[in-house]
């Protein structure tokens, strides 16, 4: 703690303890606790409480209040817990019996304030904070605290209930791991006293007839097994396994979902997943007995496991595939059935009944689809999925949803009636479809898949969110289609599909709905990014109306759309005028025209998104070497930075700096590094400068003026980036070892105004704008001056300053203490007036 803080703290404590003061802002109290937490975390010594007696005095005075406010009492409980987190400080507080009075049965626990959830929450959190050593453990166990915590698991406040559960887990682990004396043995394990109490309570509540008690204990076990992977957890499990199994078989208490979650968390623990037999038998039985909706999360969790018996894995997969299998069967003629699952393993009755009921069909499908997407996103899947049938099933679902398929079978017609226009299912199915494109083996169906996708893209009934997902799936499958046609040379099919896609895209680009126009443009950009090297793609695109419509959207009324149009037009340029070989179609695309349009957006658009898109596109062009010869590039960059220099949006200015950064590194790369490697003396530096072409180019392009002004930008990220670039430039122009000397010379030659520049920057770059009109004779276009500036100005110090957050002073503990003190005596009416 700093001396300033130590001086402020007594006043703050007195203010907080004063019942006449209006309650302090909750965030202040929270941040105060954060501060104490950070001070005590790595320092077990008693000095904090000894050197600041105001802390214990504060606790004492709160305890003396007849009616403390719940928020300040809650704060006190949490503070005391944090202070008592080390054994030394715990003993110190106990000398005055403060902890007993706060956390014991005669404390707040037995008063009316206990009814306030924030007090109960403070109590639990306080206990949790102190629970790092045996004295705290015994203090609580001997004082009847365990009973309180068990009761709090059923608290009306969710926050309190879950905190109580976490606390019990923490105490159990602490007790076993700090108090066990004998070496571990599964057969005769001696629970330490405190752990014994907790385990006994868990066992009792599992046997009780109250569903909520059972539920609480199952949740507790779940978090225990997921957070602690020690061998002793198995001993606990052996004592309760039978009871838990009975919940599965007898179903007298409805805890199936929690049970599935418990088993899943156990499966992730090495203690159980390495075990043989009984645990996995229980998992298998759960997969069989639980309803598909309950078993789904367990199944997908099992399939993610690295270690798991293969038969359990197959059982889990069966759970996930059954609904998809059922869909396929429902849609096919009796004889043509080629399902996903071997008929011997599938027991379709339950799933069929769920899918044919209106209330459960969509939710079961959505859950299954979400799980399949999760599986498909895994890099290594330890089990084979039948991709082709899965794709067929997905297509069937999508066709049910848009009414393109209504099969004759009773099940099929029921499901199709339920699913028609079901947006939830459409969204989920399209997500899986997109994920499936990465997997090999679905190629035979690709033609009919595009029929389905195109139907969605064309249909006026497709909502904008579904359309967006259809675009995502389509772009992925188009890439796949291209890979395929490369290997099979089936160009005709690809061309036909591309033509159809662009036809529908033309329509969508004219949609009255901005969301649709925007998603269409994003789709186009993705396609160009992935397929711009492919001839058929370029031909289809350029022979369509899409490029023209895209350019039109540069003037869209919606700024999001304008920004996306800028990006799309920018990418289009890669296949029109930036392409290495000219496009096949007659070249109606003029580079000058497009660049001028984007320049105009950059200087005129009233909103930030399109301007940001332009500057980022320009940087992309520059990176890819599309801006022409070096002189052209220099002019281009110079023009752009003069436009963005005065932009109101700091992110545009930041974009400008990025452009400068790329330009600098490219120029230096092209022209080679400066040849001034051994020029310690300033005059020598000056003499070599004129031979340094890159420096001259930067000066001519007015980069330095932009960079130095940016150092004083009112928005920190801009200053920071400028500083980074100047840093890099200095590294280039002053190779290692040469800089120190020049900085130490101290005396600056007159006439360059660098001293003034240095002073201005040192005055605190953020304190003011860079003075307009250039300032005292600094010539930002003079290479010599700039070389001098780079060598002289203390960029390190600036860098450190700019790297800190702009509110780092206001965020400091000292500032927090001052703020609390400042509110003393004021009435906080402002509070309610939030934005």
């Amino acid at each position: 703690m700093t001396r300033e803080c130590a001086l402020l703290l007594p006043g703050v404590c007195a203010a907080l303890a004063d019942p006449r003061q209006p309650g302090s802002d909750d965030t202040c109290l929270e941040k105060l606790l954060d501060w104490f937490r950070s001070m005590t975390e790595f320092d077990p010594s008693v000095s904090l409480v000894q050197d600041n007696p105001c802390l214990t005095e504060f606790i004492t005075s709160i305890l003396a209040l007849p009616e403390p406010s719940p928020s300040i009492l809650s704060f006190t409980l949490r503070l005391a817990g944090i202070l008592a987190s080390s054994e030394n400080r715990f003993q110190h507080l106990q000398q005055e019996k403060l902890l007993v009075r706060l956390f014991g049965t005669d404390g707040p626990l037995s008063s009316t304030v206990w009814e306030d959830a924030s007090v109960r929450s403070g109590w639990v959190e306080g206990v949790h904070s102190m629970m790092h050593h045996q004295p705290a453990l015994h203090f609580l166990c001997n004082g009847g605290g365990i009973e309180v915590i068990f009761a709090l698991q059923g608290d009306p406040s969710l926050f309190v209930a879950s905190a109580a559960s976490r606390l019990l887990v923490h105490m159990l682990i602490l007790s076993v791991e700090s108090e066990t004396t004998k070496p571990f043995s599964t057969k005769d394990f001696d629970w330490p006293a405190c752990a014994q109490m907790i385990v006994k309570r868990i066992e009792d509540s599992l046997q009780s007839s109250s569903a909520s008690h059972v539920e609480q204990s199952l949740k507790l076990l779940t978090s225990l097994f997921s957070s602690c992977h020690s061998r002793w957890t198995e001993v606990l499990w052996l004592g309760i396994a039978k009871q838990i199994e009975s919940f599965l078989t007898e179903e007298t208490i409805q805890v199936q979902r929690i049970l599935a979650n418990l088993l899943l968390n156990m499966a992730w623990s090495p203690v159980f997943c390495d075990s043989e037999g009984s645990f996995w038998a229980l998992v298998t039985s759960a997969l069989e007995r639980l309803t598909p909706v309950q078993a789904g999360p367990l199944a997908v969790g099992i399939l993610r496991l690295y270690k798991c018996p293969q038969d359990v894995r197959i059982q889990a997969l069966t759970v996930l595939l059954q609904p998809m299998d059922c869909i396929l069967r429902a849609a096919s003629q009796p004889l043509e059935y080629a399902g996903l699952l071997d008929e011997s393993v599938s027991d379709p009755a339950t799933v069929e009944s769920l899918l044919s009921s209106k209330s459960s069909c969509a939710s079961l499908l959505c859950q299954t689809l979400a799980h399949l997407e999760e599986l498909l996103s895994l890099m290594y899947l330890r089990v084979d999925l039948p991709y082709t049938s899965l794709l067929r099933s997905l297509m069937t679902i999508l066709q049910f949803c848009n009414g393109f398929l209504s099969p004759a079978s009773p099940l099929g017609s029921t499901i199709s009636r339920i699913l028609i226009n079901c947006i939830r299912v459409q969204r989920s199915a399209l997500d899986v479809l997109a994920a499936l494109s990465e997997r090999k083996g679905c190629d035979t169906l690709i033609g009919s898949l595009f029929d389905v996708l195109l139907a969605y893209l064309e249909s006026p009934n497709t909502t904008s969110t579904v359309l967006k997902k259809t675009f995502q799936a389509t772009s992925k499958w188009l890439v796949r289609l291209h890979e395929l046609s490369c290997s099979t040379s089936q160009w005709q099919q690809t061309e036909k599909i591309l033509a159809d896609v662009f036809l529908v895209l033309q329509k969508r680009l004219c949609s009255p709905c901005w969301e649709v126009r925007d998603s269409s443009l994003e789709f186009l950009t993705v396609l160009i990014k992935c397929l711009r090297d492919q001839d058929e793609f370029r031909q289809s695109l350029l022979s369509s109306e899409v490029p023209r419509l895209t350019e039109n959207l540069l003037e869209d009324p919606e700024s999001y759309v304008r920004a996306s149009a800028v990006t799309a037009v920018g990418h289009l340029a890669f296949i029109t005028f930036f392409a290495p070989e000219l496009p096949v179609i007659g070249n109606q695309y003029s580079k000058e025209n497009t660049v001028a349009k984007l320049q105009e957006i950059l200087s005129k658009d009233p909103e930030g998104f399109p301007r940001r898109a332009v500057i980022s596109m320009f940087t992309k062009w520059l990176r890819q070497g599309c801006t022409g010869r070096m002189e052209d590039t220099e002019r281009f960059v110079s023009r752009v930075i003069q436009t963005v220099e005065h932009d109101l949006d700091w992110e545009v200015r930041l974009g400008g700096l990025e452009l400068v950064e790329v330009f600098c590194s490219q120029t230096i790369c092209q022209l080679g590094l400066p040849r001034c490697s051994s020029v310690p003396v300033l005059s020598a530096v000056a003499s070599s400068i004129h031979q340094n072409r890159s420096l001259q180019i930067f000066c001519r392009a007015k980069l330095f003026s932009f960079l130095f002004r940016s150092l004083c930008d009112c928005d920190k990220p801009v200053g920071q980036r400028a500083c980074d670039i100047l840093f890099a430039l200095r590294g280039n122009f002053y190779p290692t070892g040469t800089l120190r000397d020049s900085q130490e010379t101290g005396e600056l030659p007159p006439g360059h105004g660098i001293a003034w520049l240095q002073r201005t920057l040192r005055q605190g770059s953020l304190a003011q704008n860079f003075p307009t009109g250039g300032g005292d004779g600094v010539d930002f276009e003079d290479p010599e001056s700039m070389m001098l500036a780079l060598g002289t100005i203390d960029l390190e110090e600036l860098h450190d300053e700019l790297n800190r957050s702009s509110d780092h002073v206001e965020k400091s503990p000292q500032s927090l203490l001052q703020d609390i003190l400042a509110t003393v005596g004021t009435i906080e009416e402002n509070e309610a007036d939030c934005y």
Partner: protein
Amino acid sequence: LVCLRLHPGAGQDVGRSCILVSIAGKNVMLDCGMHMGYNDDRRFPDFSYITQNGRLTDFLDCVIISHFHLDHCGALPYFSEMVGYDGPIYMTHPTKAICPILLEDYRKITVDKKGETNFFTSQMIKDCMKKVVAVHLHQTVQVDEELEIKAYYAGHVLGAAMFQIKVGCESVAYTGDYNMTPDRHLGAAWIDKCRPDLLISESTYATTIRDSKRCRERDFLKKVHETVERGGKVLIPVFALGRAQELCILLETFWERMNLKAPIYFSTGLTEKANHYYKLFITWTNQKIRKTFVQRNMFEFKHIKAFDRAFADNPGPMVVFATPGMLHAGQSLQIFRKWAGNEKNMVIMPGYCVQGTVGHKILSGQRKLEMEGRQILEVKMQVEYMSFSAHADAKGIMQLIRQAEPRNVLLVHGEAKKMEFLKQKIEQEFHVSCYMPANGETATIFTNPSIPVDISLGLLKRETAIGLLPDAKKPKLMHGTLIMKDNSFRLVSPEQALKELGLAEHQLRFTCRVHIQDPRKEHETVLRVYNHLKGVLKDYSVQHLPDGSITVESILIQATAHSEDQGTKVLLVSWTYQDEELGSYLTSLLKKGLPQSTA
């Protein structure tokens, strides 16, 4: 009907909203606010409490946003793009248009400030807004087959709405923030007599009767005017939208009226878009603005011009609106530093500032501020706080309850102590239960939903034939078998139910033996029993049958002598399921023995 408060931050804070309502099996999240006082995860609600198993998209049926203030929508992009909610989001058209501007504004400030992690990006805001379904006032929107929502005008800010959520015959109305008195540019909130099972109302000014906003506005203008007159500069830190527009209208008309010449600047480019929306959604503003619109658009500002960074150094008076509103970064902070040292200048804070900002410091009266690099900034300029927020006061809240006639009320968005007072008032005046759950607490409200049931004509005729002629105004009890199938309910006669379900009828009879000490002959005992029952059960038909048994309605009583003890008689009592009550009454009566007097 279950209602859970899940506000961001740890304590029982005022403001920040996020409420989960479960109604007839549907789960709806009302508002998704953020807390600007924190720089870490505490600024967002802890969504892991919504469901411990399963995905949010599967659990929630929809999210509804009441208005564009960040304490009601600030966590939305985080929720939909980072936590992974992928379902529908509803808000009004103006809210959908303005919400992304504010979110973008706040994102920029947050990034600008630096040192913040886990925050959403521009692309996320856009993707989130694409998931939003915009609704019109009074339009019933069918979220799915069972769940429907409807928006009502709430005043407060442009586009603010109250929402009615209905599933079958159960319903909840959520007010969001509202204002029952019209102000300069917005009308008063209104809801029809929808009689919801629960009305969730904000209660920011639960015990306050607010002075009129007019006074505060006059005060504001006076202060600005005085400063400008003496050549000072006025800084008004604002967020891009909302209050800024309100104050612009004020100043614009005042400048026009007083023919003032000092320039007024607006520092952010975003405002142009904001003003555009205020123009576009003119129908959402109040009558007066709509009327003047014919001659002149109130949001077409003549005196207010765009600000350039260089203007701050210009001599002479000026008024500048600059972002951000709490002086914690960027432009407004920079101008503040330039102007703070001059006692002629003034800063007016038109809104609340969280701790950890320069705004908070100067509002709490601190005049020597430490700046970066250990510099001390002495604040000599005048510091003023002006509250312009528009919430319903205690009177307004009562008025809304009178309008909507809810069966229960739940208060949120207020301080516990003040809410307690209002709760008592509501319970007294309207005789409804009033709840005020703490953050993280759940309130459960039981409803008596009336469920429509089809009845066969035959059964209806038969049932009405029994007893008096039916009275349309009085409920009538019907007997039959309820068949629940495919989401429909039908009441049919038991015979019909048997037929439909292909079941055979079973008769259920209960029997019980009662031992009685009576040395007399069996038929004499029977007679004694008969007389006793005849005396006790005057309203029932008690019969003594020739075969020696007794019947009371369907109950049959027979007597036999005990095989081993002739002095004990065994009474065999048997009855059908329908007469269960009478049967058990009779056995308990007989168990008490026979009265001596009848002998």
